[in-house]
């Protein structure tokens, strides 16, 4: 039936919306971050956070190409890159590259400062952070990132509040650890209270 045709057509609206940008159109642009990658000078990925749904294949391809492009840039060069349709903002801290992708309209400088704030958070949490901290405790780095950026948008920009949230969750770990410790001490020493 012809109506079916239109139902199907409606499925395609997504692609036409995206391909149809004219200034007549109410362009719905987002300032949302698309993804963040951390990789080493050797090109080893240390952290990846994708805020847009992509297939694994696509993710791998993007990562590979982007790492290559960024590593090829010289130190004095601009921290921004146009890459495909995206704006890439990257910065190197010691041996680690932090690299964010946003849409072209976004304000590149503020993205650069988002990276910097994240590094500050890591630094505060780990106590003068180095690449090894992130390699061995990458899940912590993810937790911090999730408290700072949620769904690609800055969630909490107060350093104190982010770390407070993380430490509260961490604290549970310690308390629990201690309880077990006390528990087995009891078992070992039979009835003695420590």
């Amino acid at each position, binding site marked *: 039936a012809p109506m079916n045709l239109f139902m199907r057509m409606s499925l395609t*609206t997504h692609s036409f919306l995206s391909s149809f940008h004219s200034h007549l*159109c109410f362009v719905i642009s987002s300032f949302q971050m698309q993804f963040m990658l951390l990789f080493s000078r050797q090109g080893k990925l240390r952290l990846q956070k994708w805020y847009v749904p992509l297939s694994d294949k696509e993710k791998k391809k993007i990562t590979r190409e982007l790492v290559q492009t960024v590593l090829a840039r010289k130190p004095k060069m*601009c921290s921004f890159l146009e890459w495909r349709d995206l704006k890439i903002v990257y910065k190197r801290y010691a041996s680690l590259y932090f690299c964010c992708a946003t849409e072209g309209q976004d304000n590149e400088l503020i993205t650069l400062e988002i990276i910097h704030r994240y590094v500050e958070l890591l630094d505060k949490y780990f106590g003068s952070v180095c690449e090894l901290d992130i390699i061995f405790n990458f899940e912590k780095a993810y937790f911090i990132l999730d408290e700072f950026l949620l769904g690609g948008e800055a969630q909490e920009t107060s350093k104190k509040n982010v770390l407070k949230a993380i430490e509260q969750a961490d604290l549970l770990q310690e308390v629990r650890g201690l309880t077990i410790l006390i528990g087995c001490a009891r078992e070992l020493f039979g009835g003695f209270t420590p």
Partner: protein
Amino acid sequence: MSDVVEKTLTALPSLLSLDSQPGSAKLSTNSKLGSLIRGITELTSKHEEEKLIQRELSSIKEQVSSPNTTMRQMKELMVRTIYCEMLGYEATFSYIHAIKLAQQGNVLEKRVGYLAVSLFLNESHELLLLLVNTVLKDLQSTNLIEVCMALTVVSQMFPKDMIPAILPLVEEKLNHSKEIIRRKAVLALYKFYLIAPNQVQHIHNRFRKALCDKDPGVMSASLHIYLQLIQENPESYKDLTASFVTILKQVVAGKLPMDFNYHSVPAPWLQIQLLRILSLLGKSDQSTSEVMYEILDESLRRAEMNHNITYAILYECVKCIYTIHPKSELLEKAAKVIGNFVLSQRINLKYLGLKALTYVVHQDPRLALQHQMTIIECLDHPDVIIKRETLELLFRITNDQNVTVIVEKMLDFMSINKEDHTTADLVGKVAELAEKYAPDNEWFVETMNTVFSVGGDTLQPDIPNSFLKLLSEGFDDEEENKKLRLFAVNSYISLLQGEPSKLPQRFLQAICWVLGEYSHLREDVEPDLVLRLLVKLLNIKSTSSETKSWILMAMTKLCSGGAPLSVPLEVSETYSSSMDTMLRQRAQELQYLSQNPELQARVLPRGVSQEPMEVDSSLSFLDGFVSEALAAGAAPYKPPHQRQEELSRSKALSLEPYGLSLPISMSSCSIADRQSPTLLSVSSGLSGDRTDHSHKGGSTTLKLDGVRRVWGKEGYLAQRESAEETAPVEAPSPLQPLVQQGDGDASYSQTPTPIPECEQEKQQLASSLFVGLASQSSVCLMGKSEQTSQRFRRKLKDPAASFPSSTQNPLVSPPSSVGHLLLDSSISSDLISSPEQTHLSSVDLTVANGEVELPDRDMKGIKSTLLREDSALAAGSSPHEELDRPKDSCLTSHLPAELSGLPHSEITPLCTSPSLDLSSCHVQKDDSLVLLVFMKSSSDYDIQQIQVQVTCEELEVSCVCDSPVEELKSHGVVVCQYFLTVKSPSVYFVLSGMMSHQIPDNSLQETQFSHRIPLTSFLRPLRLSTEEYGTMWLAFSHDTKQNLPLMMDAEEPLTATLKVLKDKLQLHVVEIIGNEGIVACCLRQDQPCLLHCRVHAGMLAVWLRSPIPELPDCLLYHCQRALQES
């Protein structure tokens, strides 16, 4: 027991180390993850790594599926799996276990489980459904940390269909006592809004509450939602402007807690978010903009510190200032900021400065002029990114005087650039510039040659398409056409004589077409020579079979020229047994036609005028065949896009990366904006299977409807003329920097500084690059620098111009800009036709500069009619303006009897001469529009021989009585009727007319006038059944898509919105099913336009199709207006 002890003992060291430093579980050397990582670093080859990880993964797999594995172990395993996935090894088996961990673990294990889920899955993954219950449980937990974790994962991904299940719980959290919970709940709702806006419609006032939250974190989280809402529908949130301004004032004044400071700048992220919101609210809205001037000024003033973050704020301020209704003081300050950026030694700032300059250069070309030397330096910058951005800027300031230099720079860049995306983008831009501003044939053809060679086969298909269209359609000047074609032929013959194997296929195809069509223009070259060149091409191994089809077609055309038959026969012999059916068909055609000159002449007539041929794109002549086939049980045809969709639907999950395809960056130029997914438009490719169209209908014209009309017939010539006109003005001494002339404004005039000798070269370059800008800048500050309506029209469909805020004049609201440009062009034609009206027109010209409100007041006559007539007609009522205009009422009585019952527009005065008053109105008949011109004598004597002529380019005007009115009695009234039908649609039609009559002393008096009629007056409902609609839809090739505002407050938004359109524009609503509706209308029976409307993301996604190229765009404009007014 022993098990517990053992575990505890192994955990001891790490627990102890935790004590001293919270959070730093420094290199847990004994952990399995630690040894895995170390294991990997010790390896030397990728192969070894692969082996190790595979081993690791299979061991993990074994453990996770074992029932004895505790959640604690599971947590550790999951961390290792995350690590392996990060290295690029797939571990899909673990996804389900991640969900299990989130479900069953204690708080800490849950945390890892949720993290793994958020890293492994994306929001369309089917496993995500299994998480819903867990989230539901955790949202209800009394443990705050669990609630936080659930909200965190929900804000990142959640199955759209399951939102209703958790929505009440999330909403409830908006009232939670802990700010962190409220904040996360707001972000979760934001996520819901993004993926399913309709689901959260009812809680919009809750958003307002979040905006007023006492915690700044919650408030700033709510701004994400507002930014999105306002972007979609700024009108509904104007009342919040003052609140946003107040918040920004407080932030700037440092009223927020110190923790929100970043490098001693108060809450910069918040500031930037607010500035973005303000710019959306203030865009083309003077009164709203006025509310924010003060705070913008304040923000500029406060951002003084030399730190990136202050620059980020400044940049956002500048963007805002250039987006909202302009204020000259602020603009001056913003211009200074841009200047500081551009001149900065810091490369990031320089980049941003160039970017800002690119945004504003249309509004303020002088700014580019001011920084010309910096721009020149940036062209030679060692960083390609800076170069690239500079080219973008140059692209925006290109005009017919600097085009050659700029194109040369772009081509230079392409020769060193290796990246495909950039090349494709730049090639498109060069082609666009070449078509718009080409100074001469030679340059044009050569530039296009480079475009084709460099662009290679990644070239967008519409570039060769429009190039060939240009050659075939040509311009009015036959001589010029011939020269251009001849030049192309010459150039291609010499290319083929060189090394054609190096040329890309697309280029070869274009070459073949041109040679086939036009090589006869070169009389000194035997067709045989061309044929031999083509054969040589055929024999090159790398030539694709598609190109071979083109070659054979070109040969077929050449044979008609009486060339010796041996070559073609030989060729057709070879290919008529080809495995490629297309090729075989072409070979057969060649064989047959070359031997049958008579048929050849009929099929491929040469030198016939350029009349566009009709293509029956619905292929109706095949209907019989199709119905027979269907009757015989054949499956109905499905267009390719439909097939593809079904295919992808059968795979159930669409993993299309739509997030990435969304950003069409401002740099992605133009290309392929109109390719209909049905591929029905004849034009959408040069691929071999469609070549038959040009072949079938005769070789002289390529029917390329639907391809952007980039170079209108008059366009090219107009450009050339203006080049000649401005030529004397331009010629600046190469040593003198271009300072725009005669401007007293000190802040802009640049004092020429002494120029060192070495700079001379750069100066010279500058003068050639920035030529033409100075004269443009003498237009008013805010005026568009665009000069020709042709360029406007182009821009309209050009995604390159899509940057929403700054490339446009802030005075112009985007939806109405079509109106202006058409108005603009029509008014300039008034200017020519009626010297008496110059005073009026000069006012009107400000319309061209963007202010649309002004003429509303000044042209009350015409404009008010338009507005009122729309509603009067829609209501089907007779005019109700009698009260205001007693003068008209007497004219109403003069309406011809046969028209008196029909709806008519208000009667408006056209012109006045000393003895005659002319007024007009139009009456809607079912099949046409009748223009009535009332002539009312105001003199005391009779007037003789009155003649009124009305013309309009886009309309067919036929007068009921052609003979002049012999005599008009003193104070009498005569009415003339003109039938109007649309030739080619336009947003407004401007009729120009001339009235002449004899005055008593027998001299002839002439008066000119003009009258404007909107397209809507010609629209009639087209009554169709859904089936008929379906068939027609497929047959139409011209389409336009756009999002329009939806009447959200109505109970049924779609029905209400369509009703507005129906009432205001006289459309026929065919059917509404669910959230889709189909609507039809027509101008005449053979000029239909179909609309497919669908509710999507709180907007009305409208898709228009018509067989008339311009109709969808024009109608869209009126739809937009109708919805905005209501």
